[in-house]
């Protein structure tokens, strides 16, 4: 049975070219990049090249990239590292406010929960019914004490694209206003510096589809990982704009300007650089166009062949890869398992699959009925999928949905 992979938001296969770029760094160029001898320097050269390539993509300085083990670590470092640095500088826990959204990945939500437990004040911005952040609500939540805003670029479950540039602009304007007002204050009466405010975005799901220019989008911190962009697992990076306060969460050998200690994962970093280098505007446009075509075929095919279906992804406000559906009366995990038996891999936000038994926080935030949320499946298409695969999926899916609905005592 030929298998069909439609779960690219979970992870992607490593591109052959990326693998080739990585290959020499396992056994030949194996030195520790922190060593001064030629073995170390050869490895460092590979890392420097990767750093350069990533800096070009993000439109930042190479020195603003911190390599990590992946987006989860980058998110933790960004959120907790900024707060840790500000606290070290005398910021008071009870007087500090941070903002995130209701639909973030757990890699952001959990660090914010940790902050909340420590006594920081945390706000969660709601989303509109298409899964896009409610920008007016975000504005309303910012107070004089807000120091960090963390909003993901693309939602992993539904695919919605957030207005990152607009958010970046809002945060920047507030920072500038605080500075202006601080300057006007009497020198003896004012604090050392105005209350700072920074903008972090988890761009893990965005890199494949969007040119993530940190300058153009007024971003202070940006997280991403290798394995979502046809690169290796276990490697990622955090962009930190020069000057943004950050304190390390793990200590040791002083790598990455002491922001992130730990021996360089040379092969991973080289792979990350090679994967990012393949995201130039031209390749991205080509892939976006191709994947958009496939998604349209999938959506049309499903709508035509399977009645009582809801397409939850906002076609015009999402990555081209995402197609999130609810098939009324057919439970998500059962759908996923039946598709898997046919060699088709998808994902579900269904409570039953996650093991938590809670309905997806993203769907609930979008106002999707709890019952409907259980009937959900997420397809995320990739550049290697084909039209034939989509046809097969629609055909098999129609039978599976019909079968599960027949089994359902409360459907129809």
């Amino acid at each position: 049975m030929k298998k069909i992979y439609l779960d690219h938001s979970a992870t992607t296969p490593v591109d052959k070219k990326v693998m080739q770029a990585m290959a020499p760094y396992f056994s030949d160029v194996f030195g520790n990049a922190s060593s001064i001898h030629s073995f170390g320097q050869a490895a460092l050269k590979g890392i420097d090249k990767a750093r350069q390539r990533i800096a070009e993509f993000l439109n930042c300085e190479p020195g603003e990239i911190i390599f990590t083990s992946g987006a989860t670590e980058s998110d933790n470092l960004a959120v907790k590292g900024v707060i840790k640095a500000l606290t070290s500088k005398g910021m008071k826990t009870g007087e500090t406010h941070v903002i995130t959204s209701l639909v973030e990945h757990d890699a952001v939500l959990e660090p914010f929960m940790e902050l909340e437990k420590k006594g920081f004040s945390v706000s969660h911005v709601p989303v509109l019914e298409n899964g896009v952040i409610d920008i007016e609500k975000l504005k309303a939540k910012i107070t004089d004490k807000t120091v960090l805003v963390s909003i993901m670029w693309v939602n992993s479950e539904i695919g919605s694209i957030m207005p990152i540039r607009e958010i970046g602009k809002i945060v920047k304007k507030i920072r500038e206003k605080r500075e202006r007002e601080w300057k006007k204050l009497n020198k003896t009466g004012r604090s050392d510096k105005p209350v700072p405010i920074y903008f972090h975005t988890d761009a893990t799901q965005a890199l494949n589809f969007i040119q993530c220019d940190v300058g153009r989008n007024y971003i202070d911190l940006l997280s991403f990982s290798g394995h979502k962009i046809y690169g290796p697992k276990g490697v990622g990076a955090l962009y930190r704009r020069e000057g943004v306060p950050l304190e390390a969460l793990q200590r040791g050998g002083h790598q990455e300007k002491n922001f992130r200690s730990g021996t360089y994962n040379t092969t991973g970093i080289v792979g990350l650089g090679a994967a990012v280098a393949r995201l130039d505007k031209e390749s991205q446009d080509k892939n976006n166009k191709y994947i958009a075509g496939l998604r349209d075929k999938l959506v049309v095919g499903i709508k035509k062949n399977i009645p009582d279906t809801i397409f939850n992804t906002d076609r015009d406000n999402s990555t081209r890869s995402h197609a999130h559906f609810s098939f009324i009366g057919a439970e998500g995990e059962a759908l996923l398992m039946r598709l898997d038996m046919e060699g088709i891999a998808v994902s579900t936000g269904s409570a039953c699959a996650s093991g938590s038994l809670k309905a997806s926080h993203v769907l609930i935030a979008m106002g999707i009925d709890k019952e409907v949320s259980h009937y959900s499946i997420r397809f995320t298409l990739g550049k290697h999928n084909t039209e034939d695969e989509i046809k097969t999926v629609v055909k098999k899916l129609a039978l599976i949905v019909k079968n599960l609905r027949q089994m359902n005592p409360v459907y129809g």
Partner: protein
Amino acid sequence: MQYSGKVIEHFKNPRNQGVIKDADAVGQVGNPVCGDVMKIYISVNRRQTTDGRQQDYIENIKFETLGCAAAIAVSSILTDMVKGMTLDKAMKLTKDDVVKELEGLPEAKIHCSMLGVDALKQAIKNYRHENNEKIQK
């Protein structure tokens, strides 16, 4: 989270799935808002034991289920287990018996086995309730 081969087998080819049109009793538990609904149909008959006692047993059983793979596998194996069983014995069935028969269930799915047992017992209770009323009349 991983399912046992037995769970997969029953999910793939569920036994006793469907409806008994003239069922003697029906039991239904769960709620679509929680994502699980199980409905069990039973036909009950009476037989004589070797020592001459009369006993009621489940002659036929069918299920309809809305739920995950575990919920469907539980419904399938449960109906297999109790087919031909006396009502008294079926009432003593526990979720652990079902889990054991399925060669284990992931921790988060244990509630599915409870739902199955509850639906079955609901059906038996309904049967007994209606029959007692008939006898009294």
